[in-house]
């Protein structure tokens, strides 16, 4: 395999990882602050993508579509937080898993009811379409580079938010000790709604960005959700740094595993069976990675407790 191809694949893995981070950041924040497992996070990703596709269809503007995705996902997040999620904070994980599993069913079929069963159209804006030439003669899609840029920017924003702002201080206080923030005179329920809406908005943004190069359809959030869970478990639940490291790790493992494993198996197997066995192992690779990490660090790479 040529160096150029390898670099391109690493970029692909990075882009995938950055996208996962947008999902995982919300999940891990919500878990860290509120102690909640939210299986419905993938539905918020889907809400973002559908809102973006709908608005792009009406107005033709990708920028407006992104704004709509953020707004719709944040609103949907705030709504379910107020109606359902806040009743789950002091429940055990089992109730949380079940209730948010129920939310997935409602969101998926509700979206299908609203938008029909066919995938929607959402395209990359003309200005970002097509490839550009990178140093070293690598031809790479501009839009994917933009995704990497936006993702890293958002990551920096989230780190800044947590480290430097008032709400960040409150979030960190909440992670350390939930009773503490009440003692500090912070309106907990407002903080929770805000954190939840923030996580939802990040998921919605991811859905809209990815929707432009993938298929906007019902159920699109579930595979991403499971990967995002793998990410935060690897990184250590509640840790933003862990989410970032985990995302990149999973993105690279998944991309490079799919590329490198089949030829690797080809070195000691028949070509035809190597392709399918290699692909089979590649599709299991991130789960193997996760199990491996948990065996040596049962609470993830950056897990505190």
């Amino acid at each position, binding site marked *: 395999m040529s160096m150029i191809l390898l670099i391109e694949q690493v970029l692909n893995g990075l882009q995938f990882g950055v996208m996962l981070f947008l999902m995982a950041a919300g999940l891990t924040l919500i878990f860290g602050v509120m102690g909640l497992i939210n299986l419905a996070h993938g539905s918020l990703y889907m809400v973002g993508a559908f809102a973006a596709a709908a608005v792009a269809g009406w107005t033709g503007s990708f920028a407006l579509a992104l704004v709509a995705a953020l707004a719709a996902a944040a609103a949907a997040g705030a709504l379910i937080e107020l109606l359902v999620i806040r009743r789950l904070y002091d429940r055990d994980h089992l109730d949380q898993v079940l209730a948010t599993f129920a939310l997935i069913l409602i969101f998926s079929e509700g979206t299908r009811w609203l938008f029909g069963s066919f995938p929607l159209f959402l395209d990359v804006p003309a200005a970002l379409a097509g490839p550009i030439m990178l140093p070293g003669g690598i031809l790479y899609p501009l839009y994917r580079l933009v995704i990497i840029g936006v993702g890293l920017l958002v990551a920096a924003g989230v780190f800044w938010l947590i480290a430097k702002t008032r709400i960040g201080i409150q979030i960190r206080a909440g992670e350390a000790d939930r009773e503490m923030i009440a003692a500090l005179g912070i309106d907990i329920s407002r903080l929770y709604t805000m954190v939840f809406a923030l996580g939802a908005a990040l998921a919605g943004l991811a859905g809209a960005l990815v929707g432009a190069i993938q*298929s906007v*359809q019902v159920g699109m959030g579930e595979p991403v959700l499971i990967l995002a869970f793998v990410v935060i478990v690897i990184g250590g639940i509640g840790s933003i740094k862990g989410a970032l490291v985990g995302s990149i790790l999973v993105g690279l493992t998944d991309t490079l595993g799919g590329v490198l494993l089949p030829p690797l198996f080809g070195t000691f197997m028949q070509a035809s069976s190597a*392709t399918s066995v290699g692909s089979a192992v590649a599709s299991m690779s991130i789960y193997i990675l996760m199990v491996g990490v948990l065996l040596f660090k049962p609470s993830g790479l950056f897990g505190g407790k």
Partner: protein
Amino acid sequence: MKLRTLIAAASIAALGAGMAYADGGKVKVGMITTLSGGGAGLGIDVRDGFVLAAKGNENLELVIEDDQRKPDVAVQLTDKLIQSEKVDVLTGIIWSNLAMAVVPAATAQGKFYLSPNAGPSALAGKGCSPLYFNVAWQNDAFYEAGGLWASENGIEKVFLMAPNYPAGTDGMTGFKRTFKGEVVGEVYTKLGQTDYAAEIAQIRASDADTVYFFLPGGMGISFMKQFAGSGVDKNVMGPAFSFDQGILGAIGDAALGVKNTSHWSKDIDNAANKKFVADFQAEYGRLPSLYAAQGYDTALLLQSAMGKADVADAAAFQAALEEADFASVRGDFAFAPNHHPIQDIYMREVIKEGDVVTNKIVGVASSDHQDVYGADCKM
């Protein structure tokens, strides 16, 4: 999910067949298809096509059930339709894996099964049954035709891609069976994968002149959008499944110029097809897909047999079905001895008609195409 559609007011002329019914001859049809969850669009089209063709036939009673694309649900619905509803004929399954579960269960209980979409190789060969008729295609047909067309049209080096599951690997095997050129790369992706950046990079790095792929549903949409954005300059070919009307709307301009093989296209020039396309648009307000065409043909076939024999007489009804005496929207249509179609497979190209992205026939890829599994079929 249960829609009991009892259709009244027969109008034989409306069927364009112009024949008289045999006396009595009522038939109860059970349709099990995918109406909810992922892939529901395909089942809805098959249902709508079937209902359109059967409209006005009071001898045909239709019971529709939703399999949710789950094999276990499909098998249970089969039992239900046979045991409780006492249907005579089953139809509707979209997916090969569900067909593999339902068809043996139906024929083992002595019921006819007309497949409006899936055609797994096992059911065309060793597992064939006198009661099983495939009105769509054997799974390999579009791929074999694609390989033939590519060989005859100066394509030398292809890169193959499909999901790593049986329909995917079988399809690529079908292509390789008829393709004379060189396969320079072959990638099997994870089922349900949505990001194809890694594969596109491999395609770019290869010296293939053409990418031939099969990625059904959302996978194909994702791939095409990403491929168009990558600036890789290679021909794209595939079976019709990734370029059907329901999907083209979501891909948009990115699909323009793609060649795909199909047994049907809305511009096939015959009276039955013109009527079908016009009626379908009038009834449902959207362009028909090939799934709708298959549903429509299935109902036409069934009604042609109902005109000739009583379903209670299985041998006679089977013989009537074998004649395939109906005006298919595909033009010429006949059954091979293994009850799978002998039909022309066309090459289509994705074009833009006004604002609508759609398909246009550019030639015949394989005329009177027939599958290779019939030799194993002993019935």
